[in-house]
C-alpha cells in the first residue's frame, strides 16, 4: 500500500510540475492591434500614364463593407521616382478628384525598369508608403491566327518579346476579356453555371493565376510562345487577350490573397494574411508591363 501511495504522489507531483510548466511556458503568440488601418491601392503600368490612387481604411469583420464609406478624402498623395542611390529623382504630385487621387499632370508616363515610391500623408499624421520597380516593357511580336475554332485543333499561340525584371524570371498574369458578351455567347462549361445576365460580369474578364516565364517555350529569336488554354475562354466571339508581367508586390499580393479562401497546404480554418509591401498601412502599390491583342473564337 505504501508503494502504491508513493506512486500516486509521484504521479500527481509530476503532473503538477508539467502542468505548471505548460502554463508558464514561453508562448510568444500574441494578438496584434485591430484598429482600422489605412489601405492604399494603385498600379503603375510601363509606358502608360499614372493611374489613380485609392486611399481607404479597413473595416471590422462584422461590419458591412461599403467601399465609398471607407475612402479617405483628406490625405496628401505623391509618387516619387527614385534614383539608383534611393534619392528622389522626380516627384509626381496627386490631387483629390471625386474621392480618389489623380496625378496633377496626367501626361507623365511610367518608365519601365524605374523604381517608384508612393507616399501618402494622412490628416492624422500617419505616413503610408510603398515602393515598386516596374517590369521591363514587352510587346506582342506575332500571333498564329486571328480567328480559331473553340476547342479545335489550333489554339491561339502568341509570340511575345521578353520582359526583364530585376533578378528573377518574369511572372505573367493573363486576362481574357470578351468584347461582345452575352448569355448566348458563353462557351459550354461557363454556360453550365452562368444562368443570368447579372452573372455575366463575373466572367466578363477571366484572369489566370501567376505563371512563371519558364512555363513557356523560349524561341531562338528571344521571344516566348504562349498558348491560350481553352479553359480561359468564357465567350465565343471577339476577345482581347492581355499578358501582364507583374512586379513582386503584385505577385506577393495575388499569391497570398488567392489562398485566403482555402487551397495550398494550409489546414482548413487557417487563413494566412496577405503579403503586402506597404509601410504604415496595407494594400497594393504595384506595377506591371503589359501587351495585348484581339482574337476571334468561333463556335
Amino acid at each position: 500500500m505504501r508503494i502504491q501511495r508513493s506512486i500516486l504522489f509521484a504521479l500527481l507531483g509530476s503532473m503538477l510540475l508539467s502542468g505548471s510548466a505548460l502554463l508558464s511556458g514561453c508562448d510568444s503568440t500574441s494578438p496584434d492591434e485591430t484598429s482600422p488601418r489605412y489601405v492604399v491601392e494603385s498600379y503603375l503600368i510601363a509606358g502608360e500614364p499614372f493611374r489613380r490612387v485609392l486611399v481607404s481604411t479597413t473595416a471590422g469583420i462584422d461590419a458591412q463593407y461599403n467601399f465609398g464609406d471607407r475612402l479617405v478624402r483628406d490625405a496628401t498623395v505623391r509618387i516619387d521616382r527614385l534614383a539608383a542611390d534611393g534619392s528622389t529623382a522626380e516627384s509626381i504630385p496627386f490631387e483629390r478628384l471625386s474621392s480618389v487621387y489623380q496625378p496633377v499632370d496626367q501626361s507623365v508616363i511610367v518608365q519601365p525598369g524605374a523604381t517608384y515610391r508612393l507616399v501618402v500623408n494622412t490628416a492624422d499624421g500617419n505616413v503610408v508608403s510603398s515602393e515598386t520597380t516596374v517590369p521591363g516593357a514587352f510587346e506582342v511580336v506575332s500571333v498564329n491566327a486571328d480567328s480559331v475554332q473553340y476547342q479545335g485543333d489550333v489554339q491561339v499561340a502568341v509570340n511575345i518579346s521578353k520582359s526583364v525584371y530585376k533578378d528573377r524570371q518574369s511572372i505573367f498574369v493573363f486576362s481574357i476579356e470578351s468584347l461582345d458578351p452575352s448569355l448566348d455567347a458563353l462557351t459550354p462549361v461557363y454556360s453550365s453555371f452562368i444562368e443570368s445576365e447579372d452573372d455575366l460580369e463575373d466572367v466578363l474578364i477571366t484572369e489566370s493565376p501567376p505563371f512563371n516565364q519558364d512555363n513557356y517555350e523560349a524561341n531562338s529569336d528571344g521571344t516566348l510562345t504562349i498558348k491560350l488554354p481553352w479553359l480561359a475562354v468564357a465567350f465565343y466571339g471577339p476577345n482581347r487577350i492581355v499578358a501582364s508581367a507583374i512586379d513582386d508586390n503584385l505577385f506577393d499580393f495575388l499569391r497570398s490573397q488567392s489562398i485566403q479562401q482555402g487551397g495550398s497546404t494550409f489546414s482548413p480554418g487557417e487563413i494566412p494574411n496577405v503579403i503586402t509591401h506597404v509601410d504604415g498601412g496595407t494594400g497594393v502599390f504595384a506595377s506591371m508591363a503589359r501587351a495585348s491583342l484581339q482574337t476571334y473564337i468561333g463556335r
Partner: protein
Amino acid sequence: MIAGRSLHRYVLSSLQVVVLTAAVFFVTPSAPAWSQSRASLTGFVRDASTGETLILANVTLVRGEIGAATNTTGYYAITGIEPGTYTVVASYIGYSEFRTELTLAAGESRRLDIDLQPAEIGVLEVVVTADRETEEEVRRVGVAQLKTDLVKSLPAVLEPDVFRSLQLLPGVKAASDYSSGLYIRGGSPDQTLILLDRTTVYNPSHFFGFFSTFNPDAVKDVRLYKGGYPAEYGGRLGSVVDIYNKDGNRVGTHDTASLGLLASRAMVEGPYSRGSWMFAVRRSTLEPLLAVLKNQDIDGIPESFYFYDVNGKVNLDVSADDKVSASFYTGRDRLSLPIFDDEAGVDLQYGNFTGSANWTHIFSDKLYSNFTFTSSRYFSTPKFKFGGTEFNRSNKVYDISTKGDFEFRPEGDHAITGGFWAGNFTFRLNDTFDGESTLSERIQSLYASVYVQDEYKPASNWVLRGGLRANYFEGGDYIRLEPRLSIENRPSPQLRLQAGYGRYYQFLTLITSELFSGSDIWLTTDNGVPPAYGDQFVAGIKTSPRSGLNVDLELYYRTMKGLFTLDPFLPDAAGVAYEDLFQFGDGYAYGSEVLLEKQKGKLNGFVGYTLGLTRRRYFGFEGDKWFSPKYDRTHDLNVVGNFDVGRGWRFTGVFNYATGQAYTQPESQFKIVDSPLGSTVRDVIWAPFNESRLPAYHRMDIGASKIGGFLGFADYELQLQLLNVYSRENVWFYFFESQEDNSIKRTTVPQIPVPIPNISFTLKF
C-alpha cells in the same frame, strides 16, 4: 537535382555499412572466461492455436530473475544462465501462462520453442501495453503496443482502422473525424515513420485520408514508438509505427469473411509442409449505393468510387535456424467525378505497393540476425478537366532498400544490437497543363544508415541503453550522427522510473493537405535544403499497482529545427531553384501523458489524458511569429471501455474530449477594387493567424458484439455500433465568405454531425 548515380556507388555504400556493422561486432569484447560455465536458452514463442509467432512475449527464468522479450520474429535469447534447475515462464496477454521446469548444464545451449494457448475466447485483453513484470520492450518509455483484437472491437466509422485506434492513445491526436493521419506529440504526420513488415509506407490512407490502408484482418502486431525511439529506427523527427502482418496459421486452414457497410473483407490462411501463408483482401462495396443514387438523377454522384487492398505473406522454415518469408501489400483508390455534363471533371487515382523478403538466421545462441530486402512504391495521378483544358499530374515515389539487424548477447550484462539500412529513394513529379509539360522533377538519392546500441544492466534494477545511429543521405551529401540514451531504474517490481534522450534527423518532407491526402508529395533534402533535426527528452513513471493494472505517466519535450516544407504561397514552381521551393522553420512541443489501464476482467479498458503544447514558426511567414498548428490541443482525454457480459456478448464504449483546435478568426477586412488585371473585386481578410480556438471537441461511440456458432460450420461475430451517440456537432472549421451585401458570413463546417450506425457480420471458418 541529384541525377541517377551509377550502381556501383549504391553497392559501395551498402558494402560500407555492412563492413561497419561487422566491425562493431568484431570489436565487441569477447565473453569472459566464466562464460564457458554458463548456459543459454533460446527459441521462438508462438500461438498454439495458429502457430503465429508472438512479438514481445515474455520469457522468464523464475529463479535467477532473468528473462527476455521476443523480438519482431518471435525469437528470444537468454544467455549467461548459471547451471541449475529453473522454472521457465512464458507469458503474453490474452494467453495462458506457460510454465515448465528444466535443468541447464554448464555450457549448454538449450533450444526451447514455446506454444502459448490462447485464453478463453471472448475475453478481450491486452489493450495498449503488456503487463508482466519483465515485459521489457513494451514498458519502455514512449512505447505502446496495439492488438488487432482491440482495433476490430472499437466502434469505427464504417471500417475498423488501425490508425484511428492509435489516435486514442495519449499523445496521439487526429486532425479531424475525417482524417486518419497521426499527429504524435506535437509532430505532423510526416514525422512518423510507418513500416509494414519492415518496409516504409509513404501514404497509408484510403478514401483520401479517411482511414488507413492497414487491413486489421491481416495485421498481427502494431507497435508505436511515440518518442525517444531507439537507434534501430531513424529517418523521422518524431515517432515510429511498426506494423507486422500475420504469418498465417500453421495449424490449419482458416477463412474469415466480413461484410460491412462500406467495405467487405476476406482472409484465408493456412499451413503447408514447411511453413504458412496468408492472403487477405478488402474492397469497398459502394457501387450498389452509387447506382441507386444515379438512378434517382442526383447530381454529383461519382462515375467510379472505390478502393481495394490486398495483403499476402508466405513463410518457409528452411531449418531450425533459418526462416525466410516474403510479403506484399498493394492498394489503390479511385474517384472519377464528371461535372457539368462532362465539360469538367476530376479523375483521381492513388495507391501503394510494398514488398519485402526476409531472412532470419540464428548464427548461435548469442547471435541472431535478420536481413530484409524492401520495395515500396507510391503513386498518385490526379487529373482535372475544365472546358477542354486538362491538368494532369503524375507523382511517383520508389524506395528500394536492404537492411540487416543483429542481436548479440554475450554472456554478462550486455545485449548489443546493430545493423544497417541502405536504399535508393526516387521521386518523380510530372505536371502537364493543356497538353504541355509544365514541371518535370526527378529526385533520386541514395541513403544509408548504420547503428549500434548496447543494453547494459549493471544491477538487477538498473537498465542503461545507449545507441548511435549514423545516417548518410546523398541529396546534399549529408552525414549526420544521432545519439540515443535511456536509463531505467526499478525501485520496486511495481515501479519503473525512466528517462531518455535522442537526436533525430529527417531528410524528407511531406507536402499534403488535410482536406485531401490523395496527392501527397514527398520532397527531400538537397544542396541548400539541409535535413531537419530535433532533440527529444522523455521521462516516465510506469507503475503496476496490481496485476493487470497500469498507471503510467510520461513527460516529453522536443525541438524541431530546420523544418522545411513547400512554400504554401508558391503558385508555380516552373524554373524556381530547388531551395527556393521551401519555407524553413522551427518548432517545439512538450507535454505530459497519463495512461490508466485495466487489462483484465470483464470490465477492462483504459483512460488516456494528455496535457500538451506545440508551436511552429516559419521564417518570412506572419512576421516569424510562433503559432499553434491546427493539431495543437491543450487537453486531450480518451476513455475506452470493454464490458464482457457473457454468452458471447460484449459492449464497447469510447469517449473523446479535446480542447478546440486552433483556427484563424478574421478581425478586419478591406477590398481591392481597381485592379487592371480583371473585373474582380478582391476581398481581403486580416486575421491573427491561428490565435483563436474552436469549441471543445467531444464525442461518444458505443458498440455491441455477439459471438457464436453459425449453423455448426463456422463462428460468427455480429457487430452493431453507433458513432457520435449524442449528436455532438463538433466544428471542423469555419469558412468566411463575402456576401453580396458586403458583409462577411461565417459558415460552420462540422465534423461528423449526426449519429452514424455501423453494422458488420464476420464469419470464421
